[in-house]
């Protein structure tokens, strides 16, 4: 399972979809790059989880997300 497949599986989860990203109607057309453009804070969080970052960069990204 590659990153995009994992992403699509997460996006398609009905409970997460309903609560955190109701605006996404077609999860199967999404990929990691489209997440970067999103203004949705949860999708930004998801991008940090899925993108290839080391622990420090990831922690910084997370702090930035809260500010």
């Amino acid at each position, binding site marked *: *399972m*590659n*990153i995009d497949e*994992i992403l699509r*599986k*997460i996006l398609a*989860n009905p*409970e*997460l979809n309903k*609560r*955190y990203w109701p605006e996404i109607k077609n999860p199967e057309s999404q990929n990691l790059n489209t997440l970067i453009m999103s203004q949705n*804070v*949860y999708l930004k*969080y*998801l991008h*940090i*989880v*899925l993108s290839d970052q080391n*622990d420090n960069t*990831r*922690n910084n990204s*997370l*702090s930035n*997300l*809260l*500010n």
Partner: protein
Amino acid sequence: MAVVIKKIELNNWFGYKGSYDENTFEFSDGVNIIVASNDVGKSKLHNAFRWIVSDKVILKDKENKYSLEDIDLNTVSEILNHDIRNQLKNEETATIGVRLTFEEIDRRGDTFNRIITKELICKKDVNRITVSNPITKVQRNERGNIRTAPESFEEVKNKIIRQNLKDFFLVQGESLEHLTPLKGESLRTTINNLVSINELDKKCDTSIKMAKKITLLRQDIEKAEDSKNAQASSNTKRKNDLENDIIDIIENQLIDVQNFIDESERIIIKFKGQAEIAKNQKGLKQRIDDFNKKINTKEGIINSGYKRLVENFINRDFYLSKLTNDQVEKINLNKFKSYFRDFSALRRTELNDALSVEEQKMLYALQKDQPSPQILEQMLIEGTCYVCSNDLNEKSRIYMNEKLIPYFRNELNKNDDELNKYDELNSIYLKLEGYLNKFNHFDSNYLQKIIDDIVENENSKRELEFDKDDFIKENGMVDDNDIDNISLETYDNAIRDKSKFSENKINLENKLTSKERELTEIKLTTINKEESSKLKKSKEIEQFGIDLKNVFLEIKKEAYENFASDLEIITNNKFKAFSEDNSKFKNQSIKVDFSINHAGNPDFEIKVIDQVGNNLKQGGGASQALRQLAVIFGLIEKAGGNVDYPFIADAPTSNMTHTLSEHFFNYQLKNATTQNILITKELWNDQKNTLNDIGERILKNIEEIENAKMISIVFNENEKKKVRIENLKNI
């Protein structure tokens, strides 16, 4: 990138005496089968690959068990060619070496030839052989132009077979069971490395880490905002402490406890068989001990019976001594009786004055026989004396009628006091005799009872001994030394530990639930607090982090379940393909068990089961060998393009029948997806030193396949201790 081993060259490596160019095996990129009889050098060839790839060799110890060894002071004498070793003089050196040439095809289809060499310098030092550290070399061969390559040896050897997959691509048939893992951490690592679940695992871990991180960040924000309000601050501190307590302490304790439970479970599984045998043995021993105990008890009772008998004989107060005395009294009484009778008869005679001396004599004679009055009356009627047979005269008839008959009817002396007293004495005597008999009888009964007890106990002891002998005959004799108490104790301890830790686990889970409840209550009391937008946002993201983590865990579980189910189908297909037409395996199949342990890690176990699901682990033999091969090729197939390493196997069919063996080689010839180097003796006739019937048939098939090859290793006729490598079919 596919890798193809072009050739391997050996220098003074075990039986391969001489330099590299004297001991060269060249391979095709398809299936290569190397055939030889025992002890010519098959395993040594396999060890050459293993040494290059893993730094280890497989050696057999004194008990014929295989173990992975380094080449060091202890083992070098075995590995350096023995002729060379024996010829070495003090301080002289010799080289052990393996050189491997392989072709690497990159994604663009370009090929590189690499040559890697690994050597050891051995030196004779008085009575021993010392050995240097390995000297390694990496070269590139570009269109015949050989030059040193920039890559390190470690980097390049990893290209041949990746280190963490070597147990699946470099296998030794006879030790498959020990060296190729089919459960536990090693199998999990292999699976993770073989398939792309690895990516999901990593991201799942990241989501767990991030959920924890966001909680810490939210706590920091909360702490900073609450510093103005003491009560709120104390609540927040309590809440944060609780969270940390739950997350970092109890959960970690739960993981530890689960690990202890898993470890106990592992020990329970490992020792179950031995412990059951020991328990059974102990049970048998207990039964034998019970028999012995009962027999001893009976013996005690018998001995005490004998003791009582002896005591009775020697103790004068006892009935037995009385019995002896009574016997004497009885004899005396009998004498008295006889005397009394004589006296009574005489007295009766004296009483009758009318009797003459002759009559008295006659009466005396009659008295002795105690004629009854009825007989005398009969004599009178017949007129004949029954004593002398003469006719009775008139005088005699009168005498008998008037004297004798009344006399014997006791009618004459009715008023004789003396005689009456005699009669009384007679009756006292009879009573005395009765008492004496009674006591005798009582004494005899008492002794008889003791004797009966002894006999009964002797019989019952004998029956117990027969039962014990039958029991031992049926179940075998068990000695204390026969019982594997260590396994039994380890098993029992593990059962106790498991139950103890399971109890701890329940306590911890209860504690966790109670802390979580407490936390919810605190959260409810602090919910009305004025919160900054930053704190609100952090809480929302925190909740999302937790939800996301849980979804990741679900996806991961599902992916592993799918993987296990796919692997089960593929390995079963392989298992069936390898064992085709063999009825023995008809009802057997491979089961891939999967679960997620408490630490969140997947656990796999691959086993062979029968049609009702029983694990056939104890069976060993062919089904296990087939299982290993089916799993290896199943995993390779499942991994698809991710792994295209050469498959190098020594004695892959060592535990199989000839039919299965032939089937396996033919199957590989048709279906192998990567290069195969299969080393075997199953196709060789040791006596004739040539291919056997199966070998001939396989060779015929090889001749029809373009990139398949068969190579034999035989001893050189000219130099007995040197081997010759021959291509049986050139491609």
